[in-house]
């Protein structure tokens, strides 16, 4: 029923390969082959942003992205964001300082999207942030704190 193929790609900066079946999604492969749990399937329809993964510099819904297409790509997950075990990315620091999460399940998706937003726009307004992150859902509704965290992260990244 399903065919397997081997895909070679870069995962958080390291060359990896995996044998994947045609039905498997990126989020399943990250979970089942690489023990990376930060991108999470939640709504299963690409509507909540919990499964966000950066592929070739662009955020994708990991639950809808077929793993077969990974060959030759560069994949970044939340686990690859912190520069060291004892040091966090400024966006991660900002999310902690602003208290921008409660249960934490959606947080990796928000952080990766924020990373991408700040790469495009160094000083986003409240409105920019709300529109850019509107595809990420937080059921604990830490939205005011998330907006504050993104602004704080922007300041940190600008060296402010």
């Amino acid at each position, binding site marked *: 029923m399903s065919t397997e193929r081997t895909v070679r790609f870069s995962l958080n900066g390291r060359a990896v390969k995996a044998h994947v079946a045609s039905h498997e999604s990126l989020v399943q492969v990250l979970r089942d082959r690489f023990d990376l*749990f930060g991108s999470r399937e939640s709504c299963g329809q690409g509507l909540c942003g919990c499964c966000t993964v950066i592929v070739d510099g662009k955020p994708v819904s990991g639950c809808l992205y077929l793993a077969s297409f990974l060959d030759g790509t560069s994949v970044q997950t939340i*686990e690859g964001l912190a520069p060291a075990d004892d040091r966090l990315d400024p966006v991660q620091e900002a999310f902690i300082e602003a208290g921008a999460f*409660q*249960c934490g399940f959606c947080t990796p998706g928000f952080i990766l999207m924020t990373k991408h937003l700040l790469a495009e726009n160094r000083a986003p307004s409240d409105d920019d942030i*709300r529109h850019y992150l509107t595809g990420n*859902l*937080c*059921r604990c*509704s830490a*939205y005011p704190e998330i907006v504050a965290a993104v602004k704080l992260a922007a300041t940190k990244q600008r060296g402010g």
Partner: protein
Amino acid sequence: MASQTLTTPAMPAGQVGRSIPRLEAAAKVTGRAEYVHNMSLPGMLHGKIFRSVIPHGKIKHLDLDAARAVEGVFLVAAIDDIRKVIAHPYYGPAFHDQPILADGKVRYAGEPVAVVLADEAHIAEEAAGLISAEYEELPGVYDEVEAHGAQVFVHDELKPAATFPDLAHLLGRRDTNVALDFQLRRGDADAAFAAAEHVFEHHFRTQPTMHTPLEPFVSIADASGGSLTLHTASQNPSFVRIEIARLLGWPENRVRVKVPYLGGGFGGKLYIKLEALVTALSLIARRPVKISLTMQEQFFMVMRHAATIRIKSGVDKSGRITARSCEVWWNGGAYADIGPRVTQKAGFTAAGPYDIDNVELNSYAVYTNRTPAGALRGFGAPQTCWAYETHTDMIAAKLGIDQLAFRRMNLLHDGRPQATGTILRDAAIDKVLDRVAERMNWGTPLERGTGRIRRGRGIAIGFKGITAPTTSVAMINLYADGSCGLYIGTVDMGQGSDTCMAQIAAEVLNLDAESIKVIHPDTDVTPYDMGTLGSRSTFHMGTAVRLAALDANQKIAALAEELGVPPNSNLPFSELLRRKYRMQAGNIIGIGSFIPGYDKPDQETGQSANVTPFWGVGGSGAEVEIDIETGEFKVTKLVNVADVGAAINPKLLAAQLSGAAIMQLGFTTSENMLYRDGQLTNGSFADYKIPCLLDMPAVFINEFVESRQHDGPFGAKGAGESTTIAVSPAIGNAIADAIGVRLMDLPLTAEAIHGAILAAGIGGDDEH
């Protein structure tokens, strides 16, 4: 003396009241926090559920052969298979009415009928799609009021659980859909209505909604060697252990329940959800079994009660409410879950936070052929508040009294009896209302507009009782190196309990909160806790933690005395342990256990001298802008104020209040589980819209008032639900203020507003 050579640790004073980040913050921002979602065990099978497609019927035939023939399928199970390991496979916290899989009959569309186990989830899913069932369809009952008197019965007879003694009289009752009938009588409502200057009566409805935690329900069972370990996304591990042990006929010590972080709960992940099913399957398969629901499947698990509420008030010449009667029908769905408790707890506050001498309340838990209903952030209080605060606003408008003034005139104050007769204490209802009014600039006129865009504002206030009597036990383990572990059954599902409990322990033990390790629920390790629900943890578990820390301090003092160390020497306990055991060894263990006082309400009158451990109080104010041509509207300002006692961690608390209010904003303006002929038509995020960043009101204020719960830990009480209570009526009242038309049913949508505007003929002539 040796003590003089030791450095006394700096006093980390003021642990309570510090806004420290969550203890697990780094784990959550790096994606490494532990959830059941992440877990797998060696040899684990994945289960997929085959569900009923009809709302009510007898199962005539179930064809499992095609599923069994799929390569990679390990097992396909129906109720007869479950019975081989659990002879009486019915569970529930209030009634033992829910079968682990459908037992000859299905009672709602989406009910689990069979399960496929396979090594890989996608094989199980494919095989489950090959199962077919034939049913003899039965007429269904879906509406809570119709079901109350219907001749179609969801259950043949009532089966109350022995754990709730106040339900014992319902045992064996037949030919009814009413699982519980709570009533309260205070004063003489009939006489007061007859004597009243004005009598008002209105009917309200609230819609079914779902918790939709972003981590969908997930449980793993691992049964081997006569014992069982469950890893489950549960809000009450102690209950899971007790109920699973009961089903199996095992002692509690053979059932171990472990809970890591939860990706949200909101009342959904309570009692038994997938735990009984995975337990039975693991016993049959003799391998670990995991079932992870999809977001779509969550809508078939549990929901918030829809309700129909009739409310009637008598008012005297001066504007005092002299009598109020309420009848509440709760749509409980096919299985009782905790619905009977919602019926009772939200029942006794259904007349609102007002000082009314004559009160008559009837509250009915009604079975219907829908998804079972249970607890959702407020235990029914947001539903009843929708009714009483809209009703109260309508009375004020009719009498020509300012909405705030009318509420102040009738407000219930500390020292006065609530409808149950319990004397109100430490409920800052007046302060909350004052703060809402202040933040809404209520005294300043609002420009309402005369053209296409109209503006309005509204306020509302509500309260809730807390489930009682319930127990929490905490344990503190002081290790020989001077570090500390806190062992509690409270589940951190995002509310920040790990952090707050560590702060309480740290305050008493004179440690830094960040240095304390909170050991997550593991029923083999952590002591009993009734559950993480109903705003109870800070008050109940917080008190138990405080007592455990005091107990540890007493044991430190006793050890110092035993060793001949003078009092007030400030020797660290690690040094005391070293002196006693002559090496880094031993422990000091403090235990704290707490159950608040409670007086069971009288069966006939609902009267009680002590009906709740504390009162949750929440007030809201809203401003709206409405386009009267389309009905589209925006909540431009939302103010939420709660009485939470003293704040253990003000920043976490403010986020919790804000989050609860936004959740209720969704339940007010967009979320609605739409049923047609007993079938849910919008059970996914594609059609069921929860709030996103763009739904945030432009002005959004969340505050708590200065107050103190006299018997709470450091003056604190619970806060998880308070700002859900009054959001809906505040917005509804603002809409009425803007367009002069009342919406009586939730949710408040553009379509509903447009319909109401058309019906009332507003705006038409000035525009054309």
